[in-house]
């Protein structure tokens, strides 16, 4: 039986008082907020710890929040699942929109390789230490990050009008 969310949140807060910044439970699916510096060790702990075993990183993605304080933020969201316990968990890292730098988690979950590339492509999050951080869905010479809220559509691409 999968561990309940409040139990997991408490466990993580006790274990990583620096990295874990708290849990949000009143906006749909609950999530745990983690500092950028702590995300790798928290994911590694969640993967190995008996009773949790969040061994499947379903996806890494991002949400652009330009209206927040200090020039806005970009949230990087990690969805995890456990193939043995059956639970699901969401973690979030908040980064300044001006300079979104986040450590890569490919060392813990190699499957994040392309998800992080897509997040870079679409939202411009730089994953430090990523072995192959290139655009993945857009062409390599594309300008801008299309899922940013202030993205401006190009006038043309490769001589073809895009309007």
């Amino acid at each position, binding site marked *: 039986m999968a561990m309940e969310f409040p139990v997991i949140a408490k466990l993580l807060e006790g274990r990583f008082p620096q990295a874990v910044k708290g849990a949000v439970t009143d906006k749909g699916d609950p999530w745990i907020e983690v500092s950028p510096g702590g995300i790798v060790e928290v994911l590694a702990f969640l993967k190995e710890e008996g009773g949790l075993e969040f061994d499947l990183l379903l996806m890494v993605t991002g949400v652009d929040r330009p209206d927040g304080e200090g020039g806005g933020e970009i949230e990087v969201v990690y969805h995890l699942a456990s193939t043995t316990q059956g639970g699901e968990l969401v973690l979030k890292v908040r980064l300044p929109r001006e300079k979104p730098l986040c450590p890569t988690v490919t060392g813990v979950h190699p499957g994040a390789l*392309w998800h992080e590339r897509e997040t870079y492509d679409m939202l411009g999050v730089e994953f430090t230490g990523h072995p192959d951080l290139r655009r993945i869905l857009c062409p390599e010479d594309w300008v801008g990050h299309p899922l940013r809220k202030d993205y401006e559509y190009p006038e043309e691409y490769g001589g073809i009008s895009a309007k």
Partner: protein
Amino acid sequence: MEGFETFDAAGTEGVTDVRTQEMFINMGPQHPSTHGVLRVLLKADGEVIAAARPYVGYIHRCAEKIGEVLPLEQFTPYTDRYDYLSAMNNNLGYCLAVEKLCGIEVPERAQYIRVIVAELNRIASHLVAFGTYGLDLGAFTPFCYAFRDREWILSLFERLCGARLTYNYVCIGGVRHDLPEGFAEGTRNFCDHMEKTWKEYDTLLTRNPIFLQRTAGIGVVSPGEARAWGFTGPCLRGSGVAYDLRRARPYLVYDKLDFEIPTGKGEAGVQGDCWDRYYVRMLEILESIKIVRQCLDVLPGGEVRAKVSKALKAPEKEVYLGVENPRGELGHYIVGDGKKAAYRMRVRGPSFANLTILGKLLEGAMIADAVAIIGSLDIVLGEVDR
């Protein structure tokens, strides 16, 4: 000819200066066995692949961006188009996510109908996987048979909603309309037929010595690797991990239905090889037939669609919901901000995640096996690129 003199003079004996050179081979994006527009750049050392780099994105159609612009109910037809071989399942995954976000209850009859169409579509999708996989490896006959039977399902769907590939049938709150007359009977007939022909398919391909040589022990993914690389669906189960969302986190009425979760056991070679992934799909066809029959037996009466507000708004919440598609976990992560369109619409395509491992999996494999390995992952590029 220049350079051949040494060879001619000495014969094969005593030749010491034979060198091989690494060569780059470009596979795709227009290559029939890549199942769409996938390009893989291979660095070949003789017949062995030294390194491989996949390139995707050729049919990126900005599904997520469109999801931020269109009202929730207008986005459903776009979901048909990510994995066009299992459009019912895509519709279902999206609608369930929106229903979770907005708190909509779906009538019981609609839930059963959804399971029936989802499982029929799974059979159709696995038939394509079976047929094209044979074709990739040089067996043309299974392909013709698989498409003949798939046609039966497409005809049923055509009677159901008028479309053969992009159905837009499952909708927010239920399904568009009730089953047409004779649909249940036609489906039963198909199930009987499919069970018989399944045995023929099995005889034709599964233990075929050439097929076994091409797939057994090739492209092995251990259970640990499968989890670490984010595998889901038949690829993950092919590696022996019995993880199926229909059991792990049941949605609709799957918790009331009786079915098995087939896993790869390494019967033909090594656990997690191409053959295991192929055979898991084959066994899943039988399980889907079982599920469809059970649903038809207990199909309750009543409404097929809940009343949903015409001005449906996404509340200020965020939800994630994953469903078991033929290719793995299709997840929708929807963030709402009180408007008609989602603030952020993220689609987790199983093909995208299952393909991530490709570069590593091809390393050290023979060039001839590249096609066998790519085919065994059963990807649809429409979903990789979205």
